[in-house]
Structure formats: structure tokens, C-alpha cells
């Protein structure tokens, strides 16, 4: 671009007379990380380092694609799209994935059912805990729907896409939430029967 050469030297001059809050002679363009880095700044710094190392490796990546992306922390408000726009697509996606999200949970002997969102749990352990909390007023004790074990007389079961009642815990979590239509906490003899199956 025109004037680039003079521009670059101007830049140098400016840098020489630049007012900084740091001590003269220090050259770090960025302030050192504060004692307790904030979440978003941590992500920013991590991203900085990552991208600087990427941009320095000129020619190393011939495909022009980004290197295998490091999972970046989700940043608030980025990319800058208004929520009603984001929601209008997510709402549709949610409807399409009807099998997985909010499911009814019934417990034998309880007068009413509950509903939970399977997406908020990371695995079976969290789910069990959540169910315990939901139904603790019915003095559940410890729920164990996993491998047949001692303790309470309850088993957590679910109805899958085919309409069959399955014991919770056999399949990987992702597969479970995509096929679970409803949950039922079975009690008593039925539970014992399920637990004793191989």
C-alpha cells in the first residue's frame, strides 16, 4: 500500500514516544495476566497463544484449513447474532429431535409425574442424582438402576423408540438420550425381576 515504508517508520517512532502505563524499557505488548484471570480473558489469552502459533507456522499447513480446532470456551455474545435469530433455528432443531429432550418420569406409587430435560445431564450418575432429588419426598432411598445391586428396591427404566421398556444404564449415554422417550422408576418385584436379568 502507498506510504507503507514511511508508515512503518512512523510506527516505530510512535512506539518510541508511546505513553504506557508500564515501566519504560519493558516491551511486552500485553500486560501480564492478573493474579486471578477472569474466565473470558483466560479464553482470550489461550486463543491468542493458539492463534499466534498457528499464524507463525507459515506454509506448514498447506490445506489452508485451520488445524484441528481446540475446543474454545463459548464466549457470551459471539458470534454477534441476536437471540431471536439463534432461537428461531434452535427451536426447529429441538422439535426435530423429539425423542431426546424433555421426558416424563413416573415413579410407581407417586401421585404425579415429573418432567426432566435429558440434555442437561452429562451422564447416568447425574441423572440418578437428579431423579433422587425429584422424588425424594416419596422416601426413595438410593436409586440404583445400574447393575443389579443391593440397597433399594427401585430400578430406573425407560421406554425406547420401539416402545420397549429397558433398564437404564446399558448403552452409552448419547445413545440413551437419543432413544429415550420416557422414564419409569419401577419398584418392588418388577424391579427385582429386571435387576436379576443378566
Amino acid at each position, binding site marked *: *500500500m502507498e506510504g507503507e515504508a514511511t508508515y512503518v517508520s512512523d510506527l516505530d517512532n510512535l512506539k518510541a514516544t508511546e505513553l504506557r502505563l508500564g515501566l519504560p524499557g519493558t516491551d511486552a505488548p500485553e500486560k501480564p495476566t492478573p493474579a486471578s484471570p477472569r474466565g473470558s480473558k483466560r479464553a482470550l489469552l489461550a486463543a491468542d497463544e493458539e492463534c499466534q502459533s498457528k499464524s507463525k507456522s*507459515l506454509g506448514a499447513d498447506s490445506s489452508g484449513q485451520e488445524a484441528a480446532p481446540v475446543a474454545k470456551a463459548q464466549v457470551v455474545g459471539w458470534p454477534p447474532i441476536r437471540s431471536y435469530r439463534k432461537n*428461531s433455528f434452535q427451536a426447529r432443531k429441538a422439535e426435530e429431535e423429539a425423542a431426546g429432550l424433555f421426558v416424563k418420569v413416573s415413579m410407581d406409587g407417586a401421585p404425579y409425574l415429573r418432567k426432566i430435560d435429558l440434555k442437561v445431564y452429562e451422564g447416568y450418575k447425574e441423572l440418578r442424582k437428579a431423579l433422587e432429588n425429584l422424588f425424594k419426598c416419596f422416601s426413595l432411598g438410593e436409586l440404583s438402576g445400574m447393575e443389579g445391586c443391593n440397597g433399594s428396591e427401585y430400578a430406573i427404566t425407560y421406554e425406547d423408540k420401539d416402545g420397549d421398556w429397558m433398564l437404564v444404564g446399558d448403552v452409552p449415554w448419547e445413545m440413551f438420550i437419543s432413544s429415550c422417550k420416557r422414564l419409569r422408576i419401577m419398584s418392588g418385584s418388577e424391579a427385582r425381576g429386571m435387576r436379576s436379568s443378566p
Partner: protein
Amino acid sequence: MSEDEEDETRGGEEKRRSPDPGRGGGGGANPPPPFSDQVLENVLENVLQFLDSRRDRNAVSLVCRSWCRAEAQTRRDLFIGNCYAVSPARAVERFRRVRALVLKGKPRFADFNLVPPRWGAGFYPWLAALAPAYPWLERLCLKRMSISDADLSLLALSFPTFRDLTLICCDGFGTAGLAAIAEHCRHLRVLDLIENDVEEEEEEMVDWVSRFSTTSLESLVFDFVGCAVNLDALEALVARSPSLRRLRVNQHVSVGHLRRLMERAPQLTHLGTGSFGEGGGGGGEVEVADLEAAFAASRSLVCLSGFRDLAPEYLPAICPACANLASLNLSYADITAEQLKPVIIHCHNLQTFWVLDTVGDEGLQVVAATCKDLRELRVFPLDVTEDSEGSVSDVGLVAISQGCRKLRSILYFCQRMTNAAVATMSENCQELVVFRLCIMGRHRPDHLTREPMDEGFGAIVMNCKKLTRLAVSGLLTDKAFGYIGMYGKLLRTLSVAFAGNSDLGLRYVLEGCPKLQKLEIRDSPFGDAGLLSGIHHYYNMRFLWMSSCKLSLRGCKEVAQRLPHLVVEWIRDKPEEDDGEAVEKLYVYRSLAGRRNDAPPFVEIL
């Protein structure tokens, strides 16, 4: 369509450059002028009433006290760009005969959840002042304000000749408020609800569409009001509104209902479809041919939008209307280039086009080949995450720049971009006034050369001599800001995210861009030194926003001390991350009203 139609003309507020209380007030305390002066004033008023532009009017008001008074008496349209820049009392005291008011509240970054809820911008204090002062108020446009159902009710009851209500990106109200407006504004002509946050529980929903008492409705826009409406009432309303020209419905209106509405209102110029496919509230399926006939019969259509829940086979139904279209918004339609093509090739007169990136570079090439008159293009991402694949790139941008030479405004979301492509656009599209490029992955360099995007944006500011609004992204060093400061002499609005190296970057901009009005920055390493370099300019700006930068309390306090007419807000909405020294969110604006008295606990005014 008015997504973010920021009015760019400078100095629209009542505010002047160096706030001078002597000039600003109304004539209440002054003795009446001598007779000859009074005659002059009357003559002047008669002349001034023809002056529309608020920029001209502001200039007129600076001539002398007499002219200031005369201008104040004749200003009908009042524009307040920041509701906290002046007190309502002061505004109504100076301008006694206002018929139309535009009022803006929260900073734009509020749209991206960066401003905590209940921050402010409540409409009520203004309403309380407007009601007694302007009984003949006719038009009101609010942007990013909080307005409650009670406010809407009061509004409806306070102004007997009220005609036009436009609410853009507002929140706090629901269907009860809408019902009040519909019922009590007997002369209502315009009710435009654009991108507001209207969320309601089903039980609380009110059938507001049934309540309309006006017969002179010209425009009804409710495409993002979330609740279903009474479709029979809507149809009846359309049928008894011969002046209706603009109708945009929400996704609960099915294609079947849409067709009936179109039959009732063949004179429509602006149409926003509801669901354009299988979804919507039932109402029967419609044959594509019947739908096409409806579009053929609507000979006045110039603007189409909506297309939610699109079933792609329905899209060609709009073809009969395409040749006349000036504006087409397909940004909710998940379509491919193949699906776009049969429609877009008819749109020779298109000036505004909004689309999803699912059409890809190929789709944009078709647009470039056909829409030679295109002035505004917006390409939105379907997948709004940083790590998404991204379907459009530098290729699409270059194609557009080659085909659409008259382009004035572009908003482009992508994952891959090159300096060369941006530079090519800067050379081909000399009419560019607005250039907003969002490379969604943070700190992404040019994907071919791996260089920062400095040169591309540099070319834009250098070559596009009419540029007033710029949004930058990708990997950027201070050099980019150097270019902006050097060449961006007409720049009024600048948006920066995840860019720059040091205070120098901010300094270049604040020292180099004399017309800068609105500066919004997030997640960039600019600190106190950069902030302080703008002290000479902040009174000329509407606002400065800086979040997740490197500001400290000391620097912000210094700005507050040195500029008494500046309100310096420290927004501390994350007390758990607050160490008491770093300023995570800063919002700075000039004001004649001093510190506001409605600041919530998490806002500290320095």
C-alpha cells in the same frame, strides 16, 4: 426490514458539541423580545417549518437565541439518540410542539447479552414527561428501551391522535400491552414490532388482534411476536383495512392462512410470510399453484420476508412477484444454491437481499450474476458457533463485488476470508457506506496466506471514500487500526472484537477519526492509555463501549474527573470475578442530565 437501521446522520440529538446550559433552555425565564424581533421570529418560524433534516435544524439553532427559539417552536420530529443524554423535562421544555419522537436506549451490544437485564432505558420517565407536554403526539419509535404493558396502556390513553408506534429490540411488554394499543388508539396507522423480546406464558396471552379499533391501519408487523394470534380476527382486520400496505405475520400463520390474507389485501406492498411450509397452525395445506396465483395477484409487492419453516417446494411460488421486488429477506430459509436459483434469477430489480449462508458461495455467485442493482446484502450464518464449517467464504465475497458494483452496505458472516478478497471488494464497490465483516472464528488470519487481516480492512478504509460504518474481525494487529485512523475520516461507527495488540490501536482510532460517534469494543487488549487518548473527542461521541479489555479503575476515574459532562458507567455484573481494580465493562456517554438516578446496583457511575 429494519434490522439495525442506525440513522447515521451526525448530531441528531438535542445535544450540542460543548454543552452550554445558557443556550439550551426554553424561553421561559427570558423577557419577551421587542416587537420587531417578534415579527422576525414569526417570519422565521414560517420558513423553518419546511426544514426537515435535523442536522440542518441543529445548525439553525446555533445561530442566535432568536433562531434557537424559532427552531424549537417548529421542530416536529425529535430524535434522541441516547435516552440518558438529556432529561425528559429538558427536552420537552425546549421543544414544545413535537409530533414525532425517536428514542433510543441501550447500547447495541445489549443485543448480544453483554448488558445485564434491568440495566435501564426504561420508557416510563419519558412517557411521564411526554403525556402532559405533547397531547398531540402522533408517532413514536423506540429502540432498545424497556417498556411495560402499563406503559403501553398509558401511552394508548394519553395521546388521542396517536398514529404510529414502532418498537425495535425493546423488552418488558407482552400481549396485554399490545391489546391496550389496539383498543385505544382509534387512529392507529402503524404498529411495527420489530425484533422485540415478547415472551409470554400461554395462560397470560391476550387476544390483541381482536381488539383493533382503527380503520386506517397501514402497517402491521409482528413477525417475531412469539404467541399465536387469532387468525379469524386477523383476517377480519385485514379485510376492513383498505389502507393496509405492510403486513408481516409470525410463524403461527400457516401458508393456507397467508393465502387468504393475501386475497383480502391485494394492495400490499410489503409482505412477511409466516411459516412457509408444513408448519404453522394448520389451516389446511395449499397447493403450490394456488399460492403462486396469490403472489401473481399481488401486483404491488416490493418487499418479501418471513419464510420460516420453509418447505423448499413452496419457494418458487413467489416467482411471479420477483421481478418487482426491491427487497427480499430469505435469512430464515435454510436453502441451497440450487433452491435459490430458480427464484433469484427473476429478481433483477432487487436492491436489498438478506440470506442464509446455506446457499454457499455458489448461491452468491448467482446473486451477483442477476442482481445488478443490489445496494444492501446481508449473509447470516445458519450455524452460529465459532467452530462451524461455514458455507460462504472469500469466493462469495469476490463474486458479489464483481457483480454488484452499486453495493452500499454489506454484512457478511463467514469462517474463511482473505485480504485479497476484501481488497477486491474495496476496489469494485466504491459506493460502500457500511462494511461489516464477521469472521466467526476468533483471531482467524487470512486462510491462504496466514497473515493478519490488516491489509484487507486497510484497503476498505482507503478505497471506500464514503464509508461511515465499519465492523472488523479476524486476526488484526495495531496496524489495522493505524489504517483506520489514517483513512477513516468519515467513519462514524466502529465495532471491534478480539482485535489489536496494544493501546496504540485504540489511540490511532481516537486520534485519527474526527467523525467517530459510536465506538464499541470487546475483548481487545486496550487499556487506560488508549482510553485516555480519546479525552479530546468523547464529548463529540454518542457513546463508547469497552468490555473485556484491559481497563483499570484508575484510568476510568480519570476520564470521569476530566470530563464532567461525561457519564462513565462501570458495569459490574459479575461480582464473583471482580477484583476491584479491573473494569470489565465500561459504558461512556455524554449527557446534559448528569448521572442517572435509575442506575441498578451493579452499575457504578464514576
